[in-house]
């Protein structure tokens, strides 16, 4: 039940969506965040611009890049073979989202990114995957690395008349991935997430390494792991990565479920576990990966 009155439009193209946007409008994707907010009258837009007809829910592969429409839901990610093949990290992430099938069928990745909530699963995952957001605005389309999209809790670089139409990311077919999520129970928002991607060369040395934590700071926190490149992935290297995670921390995020000092304290173990999982995952074929679901606490 939404107490305030508003105009509702559902344009059929991204251009029409952009045309309908202004300072008093609100984009509606799956609505799992917007609708409750409007129900509590925390948000009172004059116009609601629904994305459902704008055709933004496709998933495709072009060359070595994966394209995801902004309106892809968690279920879309879970049922896409392209996602399983090229970004299994997304699949693992989506499988640990709460809210049951109702939420998984409804909530979109574009909505999660645009909402920019520090504790959400999607933002840090997309940053770890080095995804670009494709953003449509009055002047046309621009691409922004997701890492540069987030300004703070609930704040992005998106202008009021811009819409994310999709994401474009490199294939991680050859990488091992790890995803660790700390929560306060089944119903809790994530407290800290750690997404890791590792690729090894033929000699078992680290070729690429990406580690991004969510929930630790107001925006996804990237840990620079250049130091690990060219080295074999022993426990010592994981310890180094954990130490770098601690060093990367500057202003831990606090919310009602956990204070910053807790998030800071568990960032390193979460990071280390995600990397250990990624290490164990390297070279695992899709089939095997399918069979043995990585466990995310």
């Amino acid at each position, binding site marked *: *039940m*939404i*107490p*305030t*009155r508003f105009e509702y439009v559902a344009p059929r193209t991204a251009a029409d969506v952009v045309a309908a946007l202004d300072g008093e409008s609100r984009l509606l994707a799956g609505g799992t965040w917007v609708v409750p907010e409007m129900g*509590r*009258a925390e948000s009172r837009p004059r116009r609601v611009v629904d994305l459902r007809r704008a055709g933004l829910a496709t998933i495709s592969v072009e060359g070595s890049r994966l394209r995801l429409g902004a309106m892809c839901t968690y279920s879309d990610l879970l049922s896409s073979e392209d996602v399983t093949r090229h970004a299994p990290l997304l699949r693992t992430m989506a499988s640990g989202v709460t809210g049951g099938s109702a939420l998984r069928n409804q909530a979109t990745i574009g909505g999660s990114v645009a909402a920019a909530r520090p504790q959400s699963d999607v933002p840090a995952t997309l940053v770890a995957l080095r995804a670009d957001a494709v953003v449509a605005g009055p002047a046309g389309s621009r691409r922004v690395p997701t890492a540069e999209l987030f300004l703070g809790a609930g704040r992005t670089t998106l202008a009021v008349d811009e819409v994310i139409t999709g994401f474009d990311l490199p294939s991680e077919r050859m990488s091992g991935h790890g995803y660790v999520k*700390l929560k*306060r*129970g*089944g*119903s*809790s*928002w994530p*407290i800290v997430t750690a997404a890791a991607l590792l690729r090894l060369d033929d000699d078992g040395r680290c070729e690429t390494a990406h580690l991004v934590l969510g929930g630790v700071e107001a925006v996804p926190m990237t840990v620079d792991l250049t130091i690990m490149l060219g080295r074999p992935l022993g426990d010592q290297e994981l310890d180094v990565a954990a130490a770098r995670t601690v060093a990367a921390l500057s202003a831990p995020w606090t919310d*009602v*479920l*956990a*204070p910053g000092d*807790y998030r800071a*304290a*568990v960032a390193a*173990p*979460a990071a280390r576990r995600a990397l250990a999982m990624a290490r164990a995952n390297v070279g695992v074929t899709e089939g095997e990966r399918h069979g043995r679901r990585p466990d995310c*606490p």
Partner: protein
Amino acid sequence: MEVGLRTAGKSVGRPVRKHDGDAYLTANATYTGDIVLPGTVYAALVRAPLAHALIRSVSTAAAEGATGVIAVVTGEDMIPWCDEIPHGLDAGHLGGHHSAVFPLAVEKVVYAGEPIAAVVATSEADAHAACLMVEVDYEPLPVLLDVESALAADAPILYPAWAENVLIEGHVGNDDFAEVARTAPHVLEGELRTHRGTAAPMEPRTYLADWDAGRQHLTLYASTQNPHVLRTVLAAAMRLREDQIHVVAPKVGGSFGLKMYGSREDFIAPVLARMVGRPVSWVEERAASLLPAAREQVLSYRVAFDDDGGLLALDVEALTDHGAAAPTHGWAMAYVGALSTGLGYAIEHCHVHYRVVVTNKAPWSGTKPFGKDGATLLLERIMERVAAATGVDAGTVRRRNFVAPSAFPYRHTSGLELDSGDYAAALDQTLEILSHERLRADQARLRAQGRYLGIGLGFELMPESADIPGGFVAAYDTSTVRMSPSGRVSVLTGVTSPGTGSDTGICQLVADELGVALDTVSVVQGDTDTCPYGFGNISSRSLVTGGNAAVLAARDVADKIRAAARALLRADYDEPVLIEDGIARLTRDPSRSVSVVEAARAVYTRSYELELDVEPHLESTRTYRPSNIREVPDALGRMQTYTTYPYAVHASVVEVDVETGVVTLLRHVATHDCGTVVNPLMVDGQVTGGVVMGLGAAFSEELVFDDDGIPLTTGFKTYLLPRAVDVPRVELGHLCTPAPGTPLGAKGVGEAGFAGALAAAFNAVNDAVAPLGARLDRTPLSPIAIMRALREARR
């Protein structure tokens, strides 16, 4: 009144499914929110955004002009229509302070979320929208958010007329600790803090009130636990006669105490309906439903004990953070906590000084298990500390202190009189289910690998079916059993069911007494026009009181069926008749029989064939009043105000991830004794549900406020109820020591599980982190608290 024990019958004692379970499962059950009357309008509340403030002015003009708005009502506007809310248990009559509470705040708000005005509109959305347009000018006052600040010498006084921030205080037991401690081999002191939690039923408080101006009559559909008493207090405050009010409680989607009669929320819809002359629907918002509180105490203790771990004396200073004053029974949880402190352990000197402190938070509201949780946690914590101090095993310490089966009836220092039980046997069974020895070996082995398993015990003893002298909480209740000419049986009860299934249990009892099939019997509850006056469901009483009353009434009806059968079979008036499987037959000549249906029909249609002293109807109303209640205080001021004393021994097994503080619950075992079990499915369901609720309180359910007293846990993504994935299958053991003081021997089971689970989980986590030198003395056992404790230990 002796009714006599019975053994398992055709229905009783069997795992019968809920008689109305299909309706719940197929979404065909009618809740209050499902009922729509022609012309229904909707209410919404303007709530205080500050925890403490004077209301300088309320401007309603803008809201009055808004779309769909029928009325905007302030606290002042409502006063001519509703007097102050009658207290369930007025602290002012018991040596404490009286507080006047109206449905909407007048002049001053004392907690954030307090309702200060109401809007009635033609749609729920318009009502909420207009609430945003009500302008309130507040003058902020300093806020008190904890007991220490509220008791400080320079603290602002919340209710100036009291001149203090203590609603009520009292002593239970003799204050003679110092004397005993002087010669005691050991004395330990400590402090235990519990946190604020709440009841959190899925269905919030929901009402539909219909005022008929022509008849001057109110019909109220309410998601309530006590329809009759609700009618009584509504009539008093609204200055109506009770016969001008009809209260109906449709299906209730959980209550856990929150829907006990007499909260200010009970009055919103009825008063507004009378003011606007149209049916008014009001559904409490989720955030508001999470306001009332269940616990938050500081328990300081001193305990004296001998070398074997035998407790000699216990002294407790119990500070309750009540929040604002309220007309409900909430504060009494502090008193009941004091009454039950140490219960089940033979402690000769047990003294509790309780103080109920007011602060700027929403008030305590009676919640399962009504204050006994804090007392349980305290004693079980003490048992562990005594075990650690003496080097005696924690189970053995409990065994040494338990009241022995040979000691019943046993009068506790608080006056409560334990009737039966075998606490040590419950402990033995729990340890056996656990494979305790082997588990301890596993624990030692895993510790060597850096994994921290913890095992914790928790003994709970729940006084149930309370009686408040002079109050509308009674140990007795009334049921009517009625058989129709076609042999259908209706049971009308003064008790109700919040979804627990006590009504199914009552069906089983009555079916067996009348020797008829279960589906012949239906139960009518929660209707003040049709059911006998009763006290609804509280204090785990519905089956014990309403069930026993129904048994008595069913026996009357069965006697009538026997008389009719004898008449139809031309048998002598003293010929014994056995009723079974719907057939009444002569015991001495079973070939001579009539069906119960024939006999029932004959009562109505061939009354002149019956003996003249047999009245030709098939209906009886009986009250069951337990004999063990003593309302008159003894020389020490002690009463015996509870009917039954069920108990359980719990064990929790946890693993603590010491890098993150995350706890994994590996196992939970509970051996429970509620005397005679009428329906094992319902009993297992109650115990399991209680355990899960207790584990939620132990680990994750917490009401959190910001520094200004604004609640931050406003929904189920932040007020964290346990989910199926969080809790292992609860492993249950059963004992049966029938309650000697009650017919049937059944003991209450509606509050079972919570307190013992909370205590066992608490002890388990402490056991897990003890080797690291860490200790937790407060709830919740959140990963945050565990990490802090570990960090402190490392210092």
